[in-house]
């Protein structure tokens, strides 16, 4: 089955193989660059996330893609759908902001006139949940801005399901990645 491919590979020579490896690496690198550039523009660590749970149904289902932004020095408003990550919790959660409390800090006994976005306390809730998220905050009473990855701006259905399948069946992931890599190497053009 593979004898023919091996033969063509031998015919093409070592330099050609190196060239293909280089092409493959540049594809990977440009993907990473696009991802990081998106992160810079939107000011979030992950500009695109995949919905993993059904707590925002019927708006977001498992496998939907969400595009996030995190504008600096802007307060979050109720109704915003935020993605947050509490320390000690690995999976980020996508839930809607139910309450905001903008605190005016007191410095030397004088209350500041401006309420800074970083001093904002938030409470969130999944549209499909009966209760708000206090129980998910790992002992915290409120969510703070530093916990928030971004808010949902755009929506694309289903497409993220690929990554869920890949994570649920790791063998498939290796098979697909290995297959693509092999194809990229032995393809002649």
């Amino acid at each position, binding site marked *: 089955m593979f004898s023919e491919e091996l033969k063509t590979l031998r015919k093409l020579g070592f330099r050609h193989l190196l060239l293909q490896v280089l092409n493959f690496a540049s594809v990977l690198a440009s993907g990473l660059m696009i991802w990081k550039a998106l992160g810079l523009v939107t000011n979030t660590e992950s500009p695109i996330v995949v919905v993993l749970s059904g707590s925002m149904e*019927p*708006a977001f289902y498992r496998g939907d893609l969400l595009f996030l932004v995190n504008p600096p020095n802007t307060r979050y*408003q109720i*109704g915003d*759908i935020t993605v947050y990550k509490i320390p000690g919790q690995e999976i980020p959660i996508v839930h809607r902001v139910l*309450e905001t409390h903008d605190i005016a800090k007191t410095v030397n006994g004088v209350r500041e006139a401006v*309420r800074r976005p970083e001093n904002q306390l938030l409470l969130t809730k999944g*549209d499909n949940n009966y209760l708000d998220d206090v129980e998910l905050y790992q002992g915290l009473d409120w969510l703070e801005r530093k916990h928030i990855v971004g808010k949902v701006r*755009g*929506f694309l259905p289903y497409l993220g399901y690929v990554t869920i399948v890949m994570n649920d069946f790791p063998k498939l992931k290796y098979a697909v990645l290995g297959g693509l890599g092999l194809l990229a190497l032995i393809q002649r053009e």
Partner: protein
Amino acid sequence: MHSVYSRVNNVSATLSTIVMVLLSAIAISSFVFAPHPTGSIEVTSVKVFAGEARRYPHRRQEHAFVTFNLTADLSTLFNWNTKQLFLYLEAEYNNAKGVRNEVIFWDRIVRRKEDAVIAVSGKNKYPFREVSAKFKGSTPANYTLKYNLMPFVGILTYGEAARVTGPIEFPLARDRVE
């Protein structure tokens, strides 16, 4: 040159390009529609009672109970790219400690155009608590009906459908229900 691999490659590339172009056309098309949601909201009563704080059983915290009448026609928000509307009632006020509070105390998900003409006389769905424990000294609250339009594909948009004319004060806390 015309191997199975290159054919599959071409077909899938064309297909995915077409799908992406169509999806972005749909996403952009939702900006063409000019929705004009109308509505009116009236807060019929606001009562304040002292109760227990949620996670601290020995701490007292005041809860507000709001009843309201709401009518709205949101059918113009439904176009071919509207998946659902998330409707919510917002109360906005500053408390005695200078904290600006915005609280959702009622919400509803509307999924069909037939359900987009709504008339509700209701009360708060979620507990409306004051962070500093007491409503005393708070500014009067503004009540608004807002919506979040969630598309099948594209950008999420927000808007306001109705507003109570003039802010409403919080009454003094009562100990018991009369």
